[in-house]
């Protein structure tokens, strides 16, 4: 049918358009098949010699790297946990140490304080005793003086009143008077 119409329309139309389906023009099948086989062989060689081993290697390497990285990450995580534990332990130790030092210092200060207080007490006591002694002395001195003054005054009074002052009698009377 195609040829008939083409014949009717003239050969110009045939030159301009396809002779039916180009796919069914068996005269060029040999050519296509030859070049197709060449193409396929080239692609096969390129793929099997270069591309596929390379990609397989890259994928394997990546898998290895990922596995390694995950292992490394887990190791680091374990290390981090360890470090945290160590840190907590150190912190606890430091706290205990600090408390110990504080307690020690407190005890020391308390001891010093006690010693100082004792010393101060002792000094105060000593001073107080001394002072008391001095006061007692002064008081004794004063009593003696009073006695002397009283004796003298009494003697003088007795003399002035016309009596004969006997020192022993006067002293005795003053003593009795002072005790009284």
């Amino acid at each position, binding site marked *: 049918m195609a040829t008939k119409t083409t014949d009717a329309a003239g050969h110009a139309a045939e030159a301009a*358009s396809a002779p039916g*389906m180009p796919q069914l023009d068996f005269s060029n099948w040999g050519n296509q098949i030859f070049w197709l086989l060449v193409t396929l062989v080239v692609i096969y060689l390129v793929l099997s010699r270069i591309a596929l081993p390379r990609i397989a290697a890259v994928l394997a390497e*990546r898998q290895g790297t990922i596995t390694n990285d995950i292992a490394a990450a887990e190791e680091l995580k374990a290390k981090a946990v360890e470090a945290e534990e160590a840190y907590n332990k150190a912190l606890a130790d430091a706290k205990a140490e600090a408390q110990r030092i504080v307690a020690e210092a407190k005890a020391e200060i308390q001891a010093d304080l006690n010693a100082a207080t004792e010393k101060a007490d002792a000094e105060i006591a000593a001073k107080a005793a001394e002072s008391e002694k001095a006061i007692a002395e002064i008081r004794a001195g004063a009593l003696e003086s009073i006695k002397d003054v009283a004796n003298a005054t009494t003697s003088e009074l007795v003399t002035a009143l016309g009596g004969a002052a006997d020192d022993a009698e006067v002293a005795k009377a003053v003593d009795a008077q002072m005790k009284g």
Partner: protein
Amino acid sequence: MASEAHGAEEGGLVFHPMDQFIIKPLFGGDHIGLFTITNATLWMALAVVAVVALMVVGTRRRAIVPSRGQSIGELAYGFIYKMVEDVAGKDAVKFFPYIMTLFLFIVMANFLGLIPMSFTTTSHFAVTVVLALLVFVTVTVVGFVKNGAGFLGLFWVSSAPLPLRPILAIIEVISYFVRPVSHSIRLAGNVMAGHAVIKVFAGFAAIAVVSPVSVVAITAMYGLEVLVAFIQAYVFTILTCVYLKDALHPSH
């Protein structure tokens, strides 16, 4: 043909949907011998270039963290490798480079054919028939080498009732030999149909009133064809894997 002739006479609509598939010698002359460099040869060579660019040049850095080109190459590798492993079985992995070759050639030829004014090598039956026959011959040879006469068990459906088995065997044999036919015609037919339909819509664009619709239709068809280009390559490859599985494990 008649419509073309009439169109030319009337000066109206001119459809040449099949002209894009004409094979022409690239360097003059009109005789096509066995070794003549034709436009088909050129686009096959470009498919090789595209494969090399993707799989060799793209992966030349062997980067652990891949660049875009490398990750596409790796994606294709992983896609086909997984398909071979899942569909055809673990012992089919030694056919992986072969299947990868088929897939990459078809997918590259299909996509290159979608470039306007290009030539689609996979739209020719000469190409797809050879591809399908290669698969058919490989599968048959592998089947007999691996299983010996046991490969014929593929046609003897042992799960069916005994009287039915001879009839089923005939059907199985026929379907086995129809495989390369459907395998090749599916690919070429899909690709050719899409391109021819786009050309027909392009022919309608000559009418001013229809041309906007025509342009939209071409765009839509082009999108569909991009999808078909990949799906047909995928289907061709997965059917190869299925046939290979039959050859390696013929038991039903």
